[in-house]
C-alpha cells in the first residue's frame, strides 16, 4: 500500500488496550452492584429502595463529568480549530446523553415508590430534562449540517450552552424549593453505604471513559475515511 498519510491530516487512533479497560470497567460495575444489592442493609426511611442509589447517583454524577468534557473540548475546538477536538466533544456528548437518559429513567423508577408519582415538574427533574433535550438537539444538529467546519462551530456553541446547564441542574435543589433531595455526596449518606457508592461511581466513570474513547475512535475513523474519499476523488478528477 502506498503512503496516504499526506492526504489524511492525522492518523485515527488504534484500539490498543482499551478493550481490556472496558472489560475491567464492566467487572468493577458487577462487583460494585453485587456489593450494593447483597451487602448493604436496608435504609431506615427507604428500606431496600436505597439500593437504587448505587445506579441512579453514579449515573447522574458521571453524566455531569461527561458534559464537562464536552465543554472542555468544545472550547478547545473554538481555540485551536482542530477537528479532532470537535470529534472528542461529540463522542462525550453522545455518551453524556445516554447517561442523562439513564439518570431520568432511574429517577422515575426511584420516584414512583418514594414520592408516589413517576414524574413531577420539580426543579431538578425539569432542569435535567432540559439538559437532555439540549443534547438531543446537539446530536440532531450534527446530523443535519453537512459542512464539517460549520457543524463543528455550531456544535461547540450548543455544547458549551448545554454544559453550562449542568451548573443549573446541580444548583436547582438549592435555588428552588424542590421535592428532590439536596446534592448527594459520600458525606450525605450513611458511612455503611459509601464504599458501594464509591465503587459504582468509579465503575461508571471508567465505563464512560471507555465509551468516549471508543466512540472517538470510530468518529475519527469515519472522518479519516471522508478525507481519504475526498482525496481519492480529487486524484481521479
Amino acid at each position, binding site marked *: 500500500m502506498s503512503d*496516504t498519510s499526506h492526504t489524511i491530516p492525522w492518523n485515527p487512533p488504534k*484500539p490498543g488496550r482499551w478493550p481490556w479497560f472496558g472489560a475491567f470497567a464492566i467487572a468493577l460495575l458487577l462487583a460494585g452492584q453485587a456489593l450494593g444489592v447483597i451487602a448493604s442493609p436496608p435504609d431506615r426511611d427507604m428500606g431496600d429502595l436505597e439500593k437504587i442509589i448505587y*445506579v441512579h447517583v453514579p449515573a447522574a454524577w458521571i453524566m455531569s463529568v461527561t458534559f464537562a468534557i464536552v465543554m472542555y473540548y468544545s472550547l478547545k475546538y473554538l481555540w485551536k480549530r482542530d477537528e479532532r477536538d470537535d470529534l472528542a466533544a461529540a463522542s462525550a456528548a453522545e455518551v453524556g446523553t445516554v447517561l442523562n437518559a439513564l439518570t431520568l*429513567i432511574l429517577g422515575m423508577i426511584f420516584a414512583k415508590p418514594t414520592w408516589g408519582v413517576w414524574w413531577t415538574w420539580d426543579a431538578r427533574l425539569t432542569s435535567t430534562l432540559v439538559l437532555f433535550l439540549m443534547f438531543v438537539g446537539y446530536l440532531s444538529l450534527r446530523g443535519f449540517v453537512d459542512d464539517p467546519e460549520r457543524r463543528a462551530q455550531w456544535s461547540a456553541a450548543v455544547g458549551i450552552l448545554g454544559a453550562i446547564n449542568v451548573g443549573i441542574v446541580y444548583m436547582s435543589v438549592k435555588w428552588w424549593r424542590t421535592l428532590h433531595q439536596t446534592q448527594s455526596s459520600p458525606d450525605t449518606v450513611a458511612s455503611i453505604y459509601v464504599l458501594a457508592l464509591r465503587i459504582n461511581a468509579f465503575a461508571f466513570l471508567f465505563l464512560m471513559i471507555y465509551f468516549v474513547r471508543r466512540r472517538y475512535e470510530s468518529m475519527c*475513523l469515519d472522518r479519516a*475515511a471522508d478525507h481519504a474519499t475526498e482525496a*481519492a476523488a480529487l486524484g481521479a478528477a
Partner: protein
Amino acid sequence: MIPTTNNWAFIISAYAAAWIAVIGYWVFVHRAVRRARARYEQATASLARSQGKSQ
C-alpha cells in the same frame, strides 16, 4: 423502623434499565468502530490505488 413495603420490582427494574443501557450502548459502540474501520480501510485502499495510477 425499617419500612416493610416490598419494593423489589422497582429495584430490579432500575438495575435492569442500567444494564440494558450499558450493554445496548456497548454493542452500538462496537458496531460503530467495526463499521468505521472497514470504511476507513476501504477508503485508504481506494486512495492508494488512485495515487498509484497518477504516478
